[in-house]
């Protein structure tokens, strides 16, 4: 008795096996190498998961940048073959994708995404000697004695958080009339941190931020757990209100941060807002409208369309390769920044005849004040420090636009602390 439905199920099963065999079989043998003159690069992105609010645009930026490189002479004449996959922010999937890239596609480098998967993979990529350039700027990834193959082209989260707090402290707390009475009464500024506890991205800079807040003499209120997919943060806002903070740190991505700020305003929580870089972009303005006014945030590169060197090609590529995506954001520019870092390293490694993991690592670690344009500060990497820069640009929203509040250089300001801050 073979039912009609059975045929469908059997067909699905057979098709599955076929695709599996085709997809992994022939290439799985070591004989099948990438065509000469082609450089395989893998990319792991989130375009469907909880961070897809910022991940989709980043993935499109990766595609744009690689295609632009290929259309402009490639890497010393060699084309890059990009293999891009969505992992829906599920760490186990990222790990299987990575293994596929390593064993089947034989990639020379990986462009990664989240903090959870990047730090979970860090020991493995170190063992496999595959440079891993992530959109996670976690401070944990900057100590080469622990994570020698992890890189990114932006200031790290911990540096960001310290810089934002310092900017608020110096520019707002010490100068603004709102706080004059309390300041003169010798009151300490109070801070509460809003972030998703279980998400490594959100919790990455918290330890650093708390230490730094204590250094500046802040009182620290109870942390509030807000998930990345939160549609409501009222109970957390009410809990924070009891502590009556002057400033709130937001460690999540755009959607969730916008929700939290909206609820804070709705419930009359009088506090300033500091937002980490993945929560602060053009969509943030669209989501909050006038409520975004006065919010302070971090940008690790220029916003999309800003008048900085290299932006022309970003815009040109976006229109040429992904015309369907209308509203591009700073995420595209951040993707470009990471790809440009890799591009420079690939060129240098190729010129040295070392187009492999250790060769690319050595190339990146030889960069001193590398200028990739795009509003990214000059990048420096050394074999014992992978923190790319100590300069962070802090913006404030005024009249519906991003306005530069302060350019903070932490290394200059805290020369004695800076070496100790490596790696967390």
């Amino acid at each position, binding site marked *: *008795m*073979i*039912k*009609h*439905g*059975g045929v*469908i*199920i*059997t067909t*699905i*099963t057979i*098709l*599955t*096996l076929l*695709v*599996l065999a*085709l*997809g*992994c079989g022939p290439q*799985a043998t070591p004989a099948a190498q990438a065509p000469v003159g082609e450089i395989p690069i893998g990319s792991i992105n989130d*375009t*469907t998961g909880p961070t897809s609010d910022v991940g*989709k645009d980043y*993935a*499109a930026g990766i*595609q744009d940048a690689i295609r632009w490189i290929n259309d402009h002479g490639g890497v010393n004449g060699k084309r890059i073959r990009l*293999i*891009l*996959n*969505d992992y*829906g922010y599920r*760490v*186990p999937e990222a*790990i*299987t*994708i990575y*293994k*596929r890239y*390593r*064993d*089947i596609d034989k990639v020379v480098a990986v462009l990664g995404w989240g903090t*959870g998967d990047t*730090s*979970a993979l*860090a*020991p*493995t990529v170190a*063992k496999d000697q595959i440079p891993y350039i992530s959109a996670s700027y976690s401070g*944990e990834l900057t100590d080469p004695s622990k994570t020698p193959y992890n890189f990114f082209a932006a200031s790290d989260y911990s540096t960001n958080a310290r810089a934002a707090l310092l900017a608020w402290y110096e520019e707002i707390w010490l100068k603004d009339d709102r706080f004059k009475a309390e300041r003169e009464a010798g009151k300490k500024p109070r801070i509460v941190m809003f972030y998703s*506890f*279980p*998400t*490594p991205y959100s*919790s*990455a800079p918290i*330890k650093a931020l708390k230490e730094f807040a204590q250094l500046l003499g802040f009182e620290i209120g109870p942390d509030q*757990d807000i998930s990345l997919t939160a549609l409501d943060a009222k109970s957390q806002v009410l809990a924070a209100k009891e502590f009556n903070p002057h400033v709130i740190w937001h460690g999540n991505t755009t959607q969730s941060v916008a929700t939290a700020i909206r609820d804070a305003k709705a419930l009359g929580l009088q506090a300033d807002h500091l937002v980490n870089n993945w929560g602060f972009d053009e969509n943030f303005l669209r989501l909050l409208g006038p409520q975004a006014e006065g919010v302070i945030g971090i940008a690790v590169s220029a916003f999309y369309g800003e008048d900085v060197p290299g932006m022309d090609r970003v815009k040109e590529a976006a229109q040429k*390769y*992904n015309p*369907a995506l209308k509203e591009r954001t700073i995420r595209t520019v951040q993707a470009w920044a990471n790809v440009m870092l890799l591009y420079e390293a690939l060129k240098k490694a190729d010129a040295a005849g070392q187009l492999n993991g250790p060769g690319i690592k050595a190339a990146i670690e030889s960069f001193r004040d590398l200028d990739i344009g795009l509003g990214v500060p000059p990048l420096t990497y050394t074999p014992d420090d992978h923190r790319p820069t100590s300069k962070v640009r802090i913006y404030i929203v005024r009249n519906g636009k991003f306005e530069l509040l302060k350019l903070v250089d932490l290394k200059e300001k805290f020369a004695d602390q800076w070496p100790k801050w490596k790696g967390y």
Partner: protein
Amino acid sequence: MRMRLPSGVFYQTYKQDQALWPTAFVKLRMWGLLVFLFVIFPQVASPYWLSLANLVGYTILSAMGVQLLIGYTGQVTLGHAAFIAAGAYTCAVLVLQYHIPYPLAFLAAMIVAGLWSVLFGLPSARVKGFYLIMTTMAAQFITVDFIITQYVSRIGERGHSFSLPPGTLSIGPWVIQSDRDVYYLMIALVTLSVLAMTNLARTRIGRAWMAIRDHDIAAEALGINIVAYKLLAFFMAGVFGGMAGALWIASLFAVSPEHFTWSWSLWLVGVILIGGLGSNYGTIFGSLFMTLVMEALRNAVTMLAPLFPALETSFLFIKEAAFGLAIILFLLYEPNGLAYRWWQIKNYIHLWPFSYE
């Protein structure tokens, strides 16, 4: 001299009747399978295939407890990831914080996860059906989102992901670091678990579970201590979960609360629904199917991407959608799961060429 040839398989003793592998042919087949799984596959497979196999094995061990609860005992659970997490964290904390050898930590993980599962199985003495679903969901959120996220994952100031770099875990002199090492551990555990599960189902305990599943009042009237057997089912399910969790940390070199989301609990229910309820084959086929279909869809996208670049960004959700479609197709056309299809194929071959149906 006359020759007597049996015209079929006749059992002459109870022992024969109860044998796991009753005939020479089955014995040959099973030994062949074991040789393939333990010797041939790990030698010929590339690391990629090994890591896929490890994922399948992890899913089997994870789903085994769900199968035991839903498929054998009829206690619907939607929070099994909690017990896998309990196992994973027990093992990780013991190894990292207290430097206890991996095998001992592994055993402790199984026991802790089992007891933890019993704790959340207690309401099953009073409630069933939808209400039990709610209490098992509570287990998920209390364990993972509250206890582990807020407290356990902060032990030792490690940040939220406990990292276990390759080389941290070892059994005696054997250091578990490559995918192949994990594979050997995984296949041994899966084989033992499947054997244990098969035997549990054939004994008094398993029959009591199935009686509770089919009609709990009748089972009680027959003298089965319902509460004790339900709790035993929760304990065993937790033990399998703990085993899965402790294996997982070896395979991933890290553990974070993110790995044990509620969607993983739901996924495991999907695994046994597609595989087939109330059968070990169901657990195994379901895990194979769910893991390999996802991988195949990814490969399909990767293969077609050079031709249709839009596929990579705009059509990635096709993978998720196709998966949902597979579940709907199964519920419509194969509600008994892949295990039933396997049984039909076997029967078809056994009866060939005279199938009277």
